[in-house]
């Protein structure tokens, strides 16, 4: 058996004689195997990006007229649009207001529920259920939760003799109401990563800290958190990606209103494309989002390369 493998290696080596690094057969085979994926990626990733850049830099001066080079005109118009600036600002608030609380919550829950008892397994499962709901379905439920007067939230606040604001109707409140839904939906997902990360903290590290007389807070700060740093970074990236790519609930709950107070970038782009048919502005808006996505993932590129890839650890 071993001999057979050795001789197979020898045959293999013989085939590639003269081309020590790239055996010809391998190259043709590799591109044959990659062809379906590369063709599809070309159609639905690379070509769209090229088209976006083209559309963002050109404009039609007359309807049906030729596409003329417009420089940064589309971007100027985009940033001059109050609705876009509002969507950008909302997205920043939304990012800060959902990622940080979900992350803290997820970490706290993971720390509290890390021991495996049957009760904890049940509690973790309950926290994970929102992750499986389609965002649209979650929004349908929250439509009633936020309903003024007889809705779930107001009904129970009334029992405490409190009255809530018009959750989705008040421009000052609506975005925060939507953030509540997002945190509810994602915290359980992020908790999974922290639970997995906590498995990697060696028990010795805690024992040493306990011997040194560290209290629980000190142990959290000096033992647990340093070990969880990669997980925190990873969850932050996923959270930020979700912030840019998920707007289904905005569609169901508010359609970006009242007066653009809950509009987010992707929903703004959707509106430009589907409702106002402004191709140049939609393209420019999409490019702004792509730039954000690249900025978010660029930081974790090293990690991606290491976990998936070409650069071995």
């Amino acid at each position: 058996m071993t001999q057979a493998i050795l001789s197979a290696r020898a045959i293999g080596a013989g085939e590639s004689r003269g081309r020590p690094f790239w055996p010809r057969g391998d190259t043709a085979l590799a591109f044959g195997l990659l062809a379906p994926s590369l063709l599809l990626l070309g159609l639905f990733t690379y070509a769209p990006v090229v088209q976006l850049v083209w559309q963002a830099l050109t404009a039609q001066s007359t309807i049906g007229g030729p596409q003329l080079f417009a420089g940064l005109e589309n971007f100027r118009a985009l940033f001059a649009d109050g609705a876009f600036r509002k969507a950008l600002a909302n997205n920043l608030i939304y990012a800060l207001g959902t990622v940080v609380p979900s992350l803290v919550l997820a970490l706290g829950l993971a720390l509290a529920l890390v021991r495996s008892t049957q009760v904890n397994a049940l509690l973790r499962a309950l926290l994970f259920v929102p992750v499986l709901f389609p965002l649209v379905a979650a929004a349908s439920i929250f439509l009633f939760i936020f309903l003024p007067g007889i809705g779930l939230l107001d009904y129970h606040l009334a029992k405490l003799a409190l009255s809530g604001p018009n959750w989705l109707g008040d421009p000052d409140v609506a975005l925060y109401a939507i953030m509540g839904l997002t945190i509810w939906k994602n915290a359980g997902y992020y908790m999974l990563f922290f639970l997995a990360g906590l498995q990697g903290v060696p028990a010795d590290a805690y024992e040493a800290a306990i011997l040194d007389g560290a209290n629980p807070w000190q142990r959290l700060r000096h033992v647990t958190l340093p070990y969880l740093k990669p997980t925190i970074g990873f969850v932050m990236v996923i959270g930020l990606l979700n912030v840019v790519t998920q707007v289904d609930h905005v569609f169901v709950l508010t359609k970006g209103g009242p007066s653009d107070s809950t509009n987010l970038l992707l929903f703004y782009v959707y509106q430009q494309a589907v409702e106002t048919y402004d191709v140049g502005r939609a393209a420019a808006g999409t490019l702004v989002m792509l730039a954000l996505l690249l900025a978010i993932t660029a930081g974790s590129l090293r990690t991606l390369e290491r976990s998936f890839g070409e650069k071995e650890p």
Partner: protein
Amino acid sequence: MSAGLGEASSGVAMAEISPRIGYGAAVLVALLWTVPFLWMLVAAFNPQNVGAGMASLVPSYVPTLANFREAWASADFPRYGLNTLIISLGILAVQLVTITLAGYAFARLEFPGRSLCFYLFLLQLMLAPVVLIVPNLAMIARLGLYDSLLGVMAPYFASAFGTFLMRQAFKAIPRELEDAALIDGATVWQRIGFIYLPLAKPSLIAFAIVSVTAHWNEFLWPLMVINSPDLRPLTVGLATFTRGAEGAQAWGVIAAGTLIVSAPLLLAFALFQRAFVNSFVSSGIK
């Protein structure tokens, strides 16, 4: 990295850092987290479906299926469900072929331009397809796929995430197995089909769960591609249905419709909890 919801973990030392108050707070949060789900159940079986009193979380009625009947009658859920099934399984079927082939190429073959190809794939991982809805819609229209299920599926047929996942799985398989098959005269298809795929089954399952969940729940893209009511997936059907029922303030019917749409995945999760959790953890970036 893997952790089941009920898996053993580093034990005694950890208990120290979750003081009692923290644990109490976590229990409260977990209970609070179930409230929307609980309300959906209570409201869906409520004989009354409008007006005040719908907000009660304690059922004080004889349960009825009336809301389900009304939801069932006012939206074509079986057809939407079938469309969703076709979309998510169709995407998965093609993905399994493309990611297996590309994964094998990256795992086992040396070729010029390999690094370049790797970064081309990585680009898709960074530029989430959902953000490209506007140019992709134009592309779908140009290919004559507007208002078709194939149009909803096509942009997802290639998956950088899946490719990298398969690459990892294939690399972990001892090369000697393939060498032995090579001596027996097995073609590359036979080697992939009889050696690599069976041994990579856990990764295939993990990918399948993440992929089906993602596309089962997808909304904005099918909303843009589909125009005919007959071709709507569950999510788009639910959003349209909700808008109609919201006008009528028929909250019990909305709850029933939402339950119908969410039930399949929740049921699958209840049955295969461990597999779901592991695949979500291993997925990370979709």
